[in-house]
């Protein structure tokens, strides 16, 4: 045979062998794909058969082995799966992945002891290898052994001599297992490694800090950490946690520390004060504003802090003022001193920052207190006028001042000047719709007081058309009253309106007398029931409770079923006994009478609630 011929035969032989080997590989691949298809379709028996054949033919192939393992586990044939893994382990005794699978198969079979042994074997292969701890912990988590997984991470940390190892893994795991203290410790550990990640840590903690017990645990951990560290991040975290829990007093102490540590010159305290004020924690806000002022805060922020302090003091005074009886003109209110601190402070702001926005707002606040709390009309007017002196036109603060000034002028009887103020608000192109509605309503009231009922009705209709307006209800109420009475009793209605104005001017005794005379003179007028209701209300303001009770009773007796105010009168009787005279048994009886006599009243829900409170029911 020639050399070329031999070479040819050799090449041909190699090609045949190669084709045969290729054909075998291709066949194995096809069978593997078929096994996978069986597995995916849930036909695990067929998959096992194919995987087993493939694995026998090629015991070293991991994919064949793993497919067989998975399918056996799917059919809960744990003993076979364990045997399979065991035989593979015999070839690779130090394969950590296999050991993890081995442990899992044991665990799923219900044999926790051997599962732990397998996982311990994996650790023992290289006890200082962090990846092995991670693998084993992950396997434990897959088997829902969360506490054991956490323990494995902790062990790894010690064994690898790295106290910062697995920080975030542990933090997340402990948060999931509701070990909030442990989770917080890990988040703090992370924060010490990455001090710029405070926001991230807060966001992670926020997963559980809405729960009281979790927040308490986190606070305790942060406080404990502070004992051994001056890290300002710890203070910030603690302050944030305390604010989340609305523990304003404690938070304030923390923010003072933060301010000191970070040399913030009161800015941190000021930010805290603003948040506390917005959230209605006025005492803490006042204290914090004061502290920021005393530091002192940078000059550009100082007026804001001072104004904030004065507002907080005013709100504290409002909270302490339980009296809802507005003093009559000229009388000395019992609570006059209650608002003194706030007023003094607003005056200091005016003196320190003259002709500024803060000064204007301070005047407005003082004027409002003088009018609504003291009924000091001259004082209030002086305050409001002062704003008008220096605030430029078109400033929206001015419209609030005009509205209040108009009310004060109305109370003084200067309705022409009052109307002028209200008209300026109505005409202002940049006044808010609410400001304009209020001004229109006040103008309608003035027309009513003057007896110009047609004009009053016209104005009221413009507001009541928009039922979403804040003043729509008031407008509809007055509108209905005027429509009912302006035709049949136009002349007496003018007297009624004048009495109403007296009442607005806090001339309660005069208003009462005028209304009583009017009712006596017009016993058949449609407004008699409204008049009696007003008289009773005035008598209540004058603390003539026995008279008020008698007036309400007169209304009930006289009108029986012909007034829409009967249920309100009965309710007011109950409320007088309840809140003014403190005669709870009589109050209970009166509320019950309301339910019995006026079951369709809108007030029955309130009456029912109050009866149950008085009875001590657990609602």
């Amino acid at each position, binding site marked *: 045979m020639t050399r070329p011929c031999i070479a040819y035969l050799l090449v041909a032989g190699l090609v045949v062998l190669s084709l045969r080997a290729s054909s075998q590989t291709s066949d194995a691949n096809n069978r593997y794909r078929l096994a996978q298809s069986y597995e995916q379709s849930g036909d*695990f028996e067929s998959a096992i058969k194919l995987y087993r054949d493939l694995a026998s033919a090629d015991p070293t192939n991991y994919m064949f082995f793993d497919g067989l393992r998975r399918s056996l*586990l799917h059919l809960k044939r744990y003993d076979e799966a364990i045997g399979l893994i065991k035989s593979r382990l015999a070839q690779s005794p130090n394969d950590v992945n296999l050991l993890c699978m081995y442990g899992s198969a044991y665990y799923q079979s*219900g044999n926790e002891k051997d599962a732990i042994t397998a996982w311990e074997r994996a650790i023992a292969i290289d006890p200082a290898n962090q990846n092995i701890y991670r693998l084993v912990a992950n396997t434990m988590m*897959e088997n829902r052994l969360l506490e054991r997984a956490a323990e494995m991470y902790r062990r790894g940390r010690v064994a690898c001599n790295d106290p910062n190892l697995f920080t975030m893994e542990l933090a997340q795991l402990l948060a*999931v297992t*509701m070990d909030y203290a442990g989770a917080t410790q890990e988040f703090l550990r992370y924060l010490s490694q990455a001090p710029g990640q405070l926001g991230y840590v807060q966001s992670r903690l926020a997963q559980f800090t809405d729960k009281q017990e979790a927040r308490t645990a986190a606070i305790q951990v942060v406080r404990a950490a502070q004992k051994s560290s001056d890290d300002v991040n710890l203070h910030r975290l603690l302050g944030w946690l305390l604010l989340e829990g609305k523990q304003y007093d404690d938070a304030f102490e923390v923010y003072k520390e933060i301010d000191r540590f970070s040399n913030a010159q009161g800015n941190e305290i000021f930010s805290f004060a603003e948040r506390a004020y917005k959230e209605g924690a006025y005492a803490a806000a006042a204290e914090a504003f004061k502290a920021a002022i005393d530091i002192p805060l940078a000059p550009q922020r100082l007026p804001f802090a001072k104004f904030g302090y004065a507002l907080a003091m005013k709100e504290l005074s409002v909270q302490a003022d339980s009296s809802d009886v507005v003093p009559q003109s000229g009388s000395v209110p019992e609570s006059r001193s209650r608002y003194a601190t706030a007023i003094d402070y607003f005056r200091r702001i005016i003196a320190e920052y003259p002709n500024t926005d803060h000064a204007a707002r301070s005047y407005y606040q003082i004027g409002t207190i003088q009018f609504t709390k003291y009924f000091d009309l001259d004082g209030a007017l002086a305050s409001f006028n002062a704003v008008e002196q220096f605030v430029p036109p078109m400033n929206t603060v001015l419209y609030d001042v005009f509205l209040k000034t108009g009310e004060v002028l109305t109370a003084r009887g200067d309705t022409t000047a009052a109307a002028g103020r209200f008209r300026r608000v109505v005409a202002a192109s940049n006044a808010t719709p609410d400001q304009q509605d209020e001004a229109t309503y006040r103008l309608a009231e003035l027309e009513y007081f003057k007896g110009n009922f047609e004009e009053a009705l016209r104005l009221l209709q413009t507001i009541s058309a928009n039922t979403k307006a804040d003043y729509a209800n008031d407008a509809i109420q007055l509108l209905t009253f005027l429509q009912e009475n302006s035709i049949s009793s136009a002349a007496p209605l003018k007297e009624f309106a004048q009495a109403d104005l007296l009442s607005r001017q806090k001339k309660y005794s005069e208003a009462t007398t005028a209304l009583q005379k009017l009712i006596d003179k017009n016993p058949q007028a449609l407004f008699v029931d409204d008049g009696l209701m007003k008289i009773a209300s005035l008598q209540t303001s004058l603390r003539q409770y026995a008279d008020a009770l008698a007036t309400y009773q007169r209304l009930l007796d006289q009108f029986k079923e012909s007034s829409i105010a009967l249920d309100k009168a009965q309710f007011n009787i109950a409320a007088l006994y309840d809140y003014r005279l403190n005669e709870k048994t009589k109050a209970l009886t009166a509320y*019950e009478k309301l339910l*019995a006599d006026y*079951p369709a009243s809108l007030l029955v*829900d309130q009456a029912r609630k109050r009866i149950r409170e008085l009875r001590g029911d657990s609602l």
Partner: protein
Amino acid sequence: MSMVRKISRAAVCVALMQFTLASLASSQAKVLIPMDLSQTDHLKAYGIAYWALTKGIEIDWLLNYRGGSFMIDNYEVVGAECRIRGVAFSPISSADAAQIYAEVQRDDNNMDVIRLEKAPKVAVYVPPGFQPWDDAVTLALEYAEIKYDKLWDDEVMADKLSEYDWLHLHHEDFTGQYGKFYASFAQASWYIEQQVTLEREAKKLGFRKVSELKKAVAKKIKAYIGSGGFLFAMCSATDSYDIALAAENTDICDVMYDGDPPDPNAQQKLDFSRTLAFTNFTLEKNPLRYEYSDIDQPPSDLLGMQNPETDYFTLFEFSAKFDPVPTMLTQNHVNVLKGFLGQTTNFKKSLIKSNVTIMAEKQGMDEVRYLHGNFGRGTFTFYGGHDPEDYQHAVGDPPTDLSLHKNSPGYRLILNNILFPAAKKKQQKT
């Protein structure tokens, strides 16, 4: 534990005469709490009935009379309490009361009188802690001011159920698949926390898996019914409960629920002889589908196609004198009710056991809304849907304010069940 008995017609007449005479003798007037459209607050009316029972005042439930009205002796406190709770009532004379009793007892009227004499002790099976959904029954109980205790796995496994007359199953999954919320809520903190809590509870009580604990709890509840308890379940507590009973000897939970795959032959291994209401159902094996089996109709993933405007179900009418129990459970002021969805909305009729009484269904469909059955000495009632006044109540939605639904016919069905165990046991007519 009391049960209803039928009084023979003659006995009724004698009793009625004696009762009328006794009433006349004592000049005892009555208070009628109407339950028809004139009632201002149907739900609180049940609360009044329950309150009266707690005060030792017996009540007559006038089945099918003006929507299932209540008649109570006219104690002053009864009227006062009705007013305080906003429940409409009418004081009536002894003579008028006698006339009403006579009308109710007439042979040609499908009405009857059931005496309620003892306030049932009520328990609700509810997990401790926060749940991102509310429960129609606890809302109804609280609105009607009916006292109840909360029980959970510890108490059930410690045999505390025997202390109660009535048990309601909260929206609980007895299959151990955590409501099958995995696909939508696996990352939600409430879901993760719920799973960890339940796993701990299972381990604490000696079970390796939550599904195993739930099966044990389901068996305890079944034993409670068997010994005379009254079970009421809504929404997915109905089918998941029966599925758990059927799956006692197999594993139906996939790997994300219990760490190992389900038994591939789970369907074949279901034992329908163990269930209360359903049979021959097919499990939903897809762990990511929000559905347990084919019992639920329409399936949860087709709920979006439902039109609330055309979704109604109809209450069946039963013979008050011969079938007092389903009659009590279906007392209402309307007989066609608005539908409402739930994880389990309606039950496929063809999968309901033949010995179960169907009390309401979606007409023209193979869908049952409300069913009742007996097991041993007790009974069970299943009611599909989640919240009768919120058509599609989603996870995280705020609870329904029942003061806005005082006359809810759907909620009335729940409260009928509360009074049912209070009924005086009547002798069966022979």
